[in-house]
């Protein structure tokens, strides 16, 4: 492995200083080789030092800590005690466990339905435009730039039952107004709309970039073969951008299953826990109940579910990189 990693051209004249006098040939060779190794690699290691330090302390250590905390009783005041699977048992027996998972999965499926198809449709249409492309890109990307707290509070105001824009518009066209955030059945979809509004633009730009890579000759060939518009989309466009489509699908699943800001700031998990997601539950365990062990256990469970998707994602990116 090492011999493969060290490129030949790296040996600069000063590095091969070699054997010192007065040392037996065998020892000298070993010493020289060690020196050579250090001289070749030292600067590389020095440059890697900050990143390795940061990654060990703030990524790998907390990762291991998370697993070990999930088997301890931790309240940050008394010393931690090992408790085996107790945290997991507590988490499983919490009546909100099933509720939170159902809400999270519902949110994810809605978010995929909106957040996957809308950006794709927008990108396909905008890519056909010969005018105003920059305006459309700007218009649909702008919400992505807003801080999530701004988006959340803005929509809280738009959804307001009595004075909000949405109900005012509905009443203007004589449609019934709704209690969007107060109603058990509409609260979660309402949050999906907010999340989609705030994120669809970036997905759309990624698709637009991918669409630029579809070669014109493929469309021409398809047209010559008599393919109509839908067939061209189905047999030329989508297969060509398939790797990006799949990648975004997995990334969106991973991202939306960690939804927090919208339910936390807009509904606070309510009404009657209709928008309590897994992450909201983790937050409550930690900062309301001071149950770090239980929070970690639930975090580990969420991780295990997400790890499945993460593995798929990793396999896909490595395949993408090979393809490059």
């Amino acid at each position, binding site marked *: 492995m090492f011999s493969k990693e060290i490129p030949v051209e790296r040996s600069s004249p000063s590095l091969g200083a070699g054997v010192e006098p007065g040392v037996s040939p065998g020892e000298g060779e070993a010493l020289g080789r060690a020196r050579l190794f250090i001289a070749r690699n030292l600067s590389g290691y020095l440059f890697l030092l900050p990143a390795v330090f940061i990654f060990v302390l703030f990524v790998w250590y907390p990762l291991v800590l998370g697993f070990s*905390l999930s088997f301890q009783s931790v309240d940050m005041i008394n010393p931690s005690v090992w408790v085996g699977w107790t945290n997991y048992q507590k988490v499983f027996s919490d009546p909100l466990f099933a509720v939170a998972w159902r809400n999270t999965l519902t949110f994810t499926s809605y978010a995929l339905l909106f957040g996957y198809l809308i950006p794709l449709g927008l990108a396909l249409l905008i890519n056909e435009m010969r005018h105003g492309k920059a305006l459309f890109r700007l218009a649909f990307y702008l919400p992505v730039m*807003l801080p999530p707290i701004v988006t959340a509070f803005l929509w809280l105001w738009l959804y307001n039952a009595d004075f909000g824009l949405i109900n005012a518009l509905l009443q203007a066209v004589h449609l019934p107004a709704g209690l969007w955030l107060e109603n058990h059945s509409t609260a979660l979809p309402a949050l999906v709309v907010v999340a989609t509004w705030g994120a669809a633009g970036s997905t759309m730009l990624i698709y637009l970039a991918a669409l630029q890579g579809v070669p014109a000759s493929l469309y021409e060939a398809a047209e010559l073969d008599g393919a109509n518009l839908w067939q061209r989309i189905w047999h030329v466009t989508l297969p060509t951008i398939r790797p990006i489509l799949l990648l975004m699908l997995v990334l969106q699943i991973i991202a939306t299953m960690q939804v927090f800001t919208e339910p936390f700031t807009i509904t606070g998990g309510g009404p009657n826990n209709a928008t309590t997601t897994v992450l909201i539950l983790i937050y409550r365990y930690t900062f309301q109940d001071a149950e770090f062990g239980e929070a970690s256990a639930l975090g580990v469970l969420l991780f295990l579910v997400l790890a499945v998707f993460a593995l798929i994602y990793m396999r896909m990116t490595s395949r993408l990189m090979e393809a490059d």
Partner: protein
Amino acid sequence: MLTLRRRRRRQEESFERTLVSDLVRRQPSGRAIYWSVFALLLLSTLITFAPLYWMFSSALKSSIEIFQSPPTIWPLHPAWSNYSNAWTVLRYPLYFGNTLILATGAVILQLLVSATAAFALSKLRPAGKGIIQFVFFSTLMVPPVVYLIPQFVNISNLPLIHVSLINNWAGVWLPESASALNILILKSFFDTIPTELTDAARLDGASPWRLFYRIILPLSRPVLAVVTIFTVVASWKDFLWPLLVLFNPEVQPLSVAIYHEAGLNSNFPLPFNYLMAGLVLASVPPILLFLLFQRQIIRGISLTGLRG
């Protein structure tokens, strides 16, 4: 001058054939469909602009007018003083300053950590590079939520030195500086810088540091700009982690401060027109940033393809 530049840009953006051929586009029916799709898209930009307009106009209403049904489209007596009031009530100078400090620190630390590592992996290639790469890049697939609680425990009592970074900006800067994505982006850019160039510099006796500082970094300005912009935006948008780590109001960034100051669950919520004015003030910097660096941002998204 402006028209000249615009014309040149239009020429640059010569349109390649897409789904619909130019032949069909020129036919009357094709033209009709094209312009109706155009109109439809134009109409749907209201989905973005209407809420933004609503935020802006609500911020100008009096506390009576804002709770009026049906609402007025444009305030009868625009109260521009709402903005200056929100500025003082929400202590904007303080929170703006904090947000800027958090963003600046994030950029400096992330660039320093990621660029040095990417340089070593791309150009110095020390032995054991594969293992180190695994240490970095395998974390790409670990969802941030996994760290949430243990990272909080970690930050509140760092191992060995037993220092707490709660209510300390470093508690935000340090964890976010571990960005595998930045290393990946920078490394793939450094990989495109020809080895002949770096080898020639080394033969001339340039130290690795000189090579990094005088050759690699200046050549990488475009990608450094992209990473910088995305780091600033991410830092400006960050909410959950600063919310957990910074609960002393004096050190909070804007987004956390707005959440607390709004006091929606308290007995004394902020007047809604002030809140809206506050939201507008918080949106102006990122919107300006986008308008100024649109090209870099769009190029960055197509470059990495992964920034969410």
